[in-house]
């Protein structure tokens, strides 16, 4: 597939970033396993950048390096203009990080939890309570403010953890799987919150598997696989390969549908219980196909895209390598 080849080639050169995140040629080895072997990533202030890749691609390791927790073996990293290895203190003042899995302090209340982190981020003593109250309101956790954190549901804990990362109003935000465990409403709120932070000038980096969410959230997307950066795109400008989407057709009469598709010269999967999958390019082509099928009296009951554009790209990029 030539289209994928061009995608997998070296990412488009990015201009130097002054704020935000700028990582180049990052490598990190754990014993005999090289988890990250040459990743490049740029996340600009005012934009939400998605970090997408299969399990074990090195996303979490890269985030740990960006979050001043791990020293990279090689490569250069700048967070808000500072080097996390030599200037971790400057980076930490400006960076918020929330890992994919984290715990909360048992026995503390939500309010105490946030006030503790406000102190840990050296907010002035007088501002801590106010900041905690603001964040509890933002996370819709006011009614749980004085409840011990262990009574919170998984999604509520996730929201509280995100608030922890925001305590010191960071200009760079690193979020590992922030949507995990969130209900649909919370996902929408998360999206709005992150969009709002980006609008205020923060550089937001989000790693996630829930690609349909990212599509509506992210401005840019960085694809990683096997420790490499395999693609670096603006979501509004995903390459042609991505536009080739998969659509799923269900008809009352599979035989009629297959016959019509064959006549129209459209490649299709064998009919299954879910229906028949076809590859169609742009939305206009999809509309044309549907019109043609209806004209041919094929009893179509449903015609819908399978997965999102990001998901398609993701699958294509990773399929090639696995």
């Amino acid at each position, binding site marked *: 597939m030539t289209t994928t080849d061009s995608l997998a080639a070296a990412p488009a050169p990015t201009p130097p970033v002054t704020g935000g995140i700028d990582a180049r040629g990052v490598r990190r080895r754990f014993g005999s396993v090289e988890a990250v072997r040459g990743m490049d990533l740029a996340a600009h202030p005012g934009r939400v950048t998605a970090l997408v890749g299969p399990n074990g691609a090195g996303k979490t390791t890269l985030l740990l*390096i960006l979050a001043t927790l791990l020293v990279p073996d090689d490569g250069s990293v700048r967070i808000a203009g500072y080097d996390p290895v030599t200037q971790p203190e400057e980076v930490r*003042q400006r*960076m918020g990080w*929330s890992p994919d899995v984290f*715990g909360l302090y048992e*026995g*503390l209340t939500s309010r105490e939890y946030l006030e*503790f982190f406000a102190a*840990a981020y050296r907010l002035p003593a007088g501002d801590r309570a106010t900041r905690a109250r603001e964040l509890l309101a933002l996370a819709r956790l006011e009614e749980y403010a004085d409840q011990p954190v262990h009574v919170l549901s998984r999604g509520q804990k996730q929201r509280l953890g995100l608030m922890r990362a925001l305590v010191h109003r960071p200009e760079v935000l690193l979020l590992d799987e922030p949507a995990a465990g969130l209900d649909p409403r919370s996902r929408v709120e998360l999206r709005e919150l992150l969009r709002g932070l980006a609008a205020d000038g923060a550089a937001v980096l989000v790693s996630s598997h829930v690609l349909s969410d990212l599509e509506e959230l992210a401005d840019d997307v960085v694809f990683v696989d096997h420790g490499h950066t395999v693609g670096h795109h603006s979501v509004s400008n995903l390459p042609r390969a991505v536009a080739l989407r998969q659509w799923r057709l269900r008809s009352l009469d599979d035989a009629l549908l297959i016959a019509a598709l064959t006549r129209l010269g459209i490649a299709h999967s064998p009919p299954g219980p879910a229906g028949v999958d076809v590859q169609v390019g742009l939305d206009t082509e999809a509309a044309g196909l549907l019109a043609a099928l209806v004209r041919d009296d094929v009893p179509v009951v449903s015609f819908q895209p399978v997965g999102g554009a990001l998901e398609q790209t993701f699958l294509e990029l990773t399929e090639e390598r696995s």
Partner: protein
Amino acid sequence: MTLDGVRTVARQEFMQRIRKGRWRWLLAAWFVILVAITALVRLALREAGQEVAPYRGSVMYGGLMILVLSLSLLVVPALAAQSVNGDRERGVLATLQVTRLSAVEIALGKFAAAWGTTMVFLLLTAPLVLWCVAEGGVDLASIAVVTLVMAILLATVCAVALALSALLARSTTSSVLSYLSVFVLTLGTLIGFGLATAMTQESVTRSFRHPVYYDEAHPPPPPSESSRELPPTPLRFEEGTYIETRSRTDRVWWLLAPNPFVVLADAAPYRPRCYTPEGWTAYQPLQPGDVPPRHQCDDSGIDPLGAIGRSVRELRKAPVSDSGDGRIAEYADREQGRGAPVWPTGLAINLALGAGALVLATRRLRTPAHTLPRGQRVA
């Protein structure tokens, strides 16, 4: 590093501990055990006779402090041995490390919380100490010194347990090793000292003089005679030799020095008293020619702290080069006093151990990290 940062970590850690476990029960059990044992000691002393009465309190106090130290050494590893890797396992350490708190602040804060909790246990013994004071014979200086030394010794154990929890990935491993290090400090030093002492054994040839009353020229009177008394003056003195096997504990006493019980006992101010027909008097150094009223002095070892302290100082002394006359040797021994104190060495070893442990813990908490313990995730 700021004090505020240390306080932030310590307060949070302390609050969490208090709310989490069944502290009220643990503290109540601790108090009940101490009351019971102190009461038993008091009952036992009722039978001990008149001489003990004036310093009964100090005997009770010594026993109580040894008990408190023993129990604390059991409790402390449980308080500190999971403070870092337990946080790591619960996924709360990395989020703390990315804040503006430094590794030193996190390490010292966690240390302060563990130590502070230990001090709560120590504080609970205050009513019992008052009881001992009421019984009489307890020096206030002794209470101050013992409390301070106990706090330092427990701080050492806290620091060691904290370092182990920072160095090892699994909290169960660090707990086991913390108890093992307490074992090494207490029984291990004792065993080591015993084995080392056996190796220091040496044989010395001693000479002695003995009186000769009869010889060929002056045969003893025939046995039929009723008088069996020796002549008033010996004919002469003869030199003899014998081989004595002795242990040079003065070469290996330092193996015992870091033992917390030894440090505590030897550091406690000791004021021996003697019972004379006029009543209790302060101990006076013996003058040559005095018959030591040894059995009448509380040197006899009924005060547990004093007894341990005296024994270790005894071990530190070089053997007395006596000339064969038992009494003279004893005088020489008494005149030499109690021997050099052992506790400064022991306390120094403990302080060095604790400081080293804190440095190690801090280094392990420092991020960004180059290496990770085997099988450990950062977050």
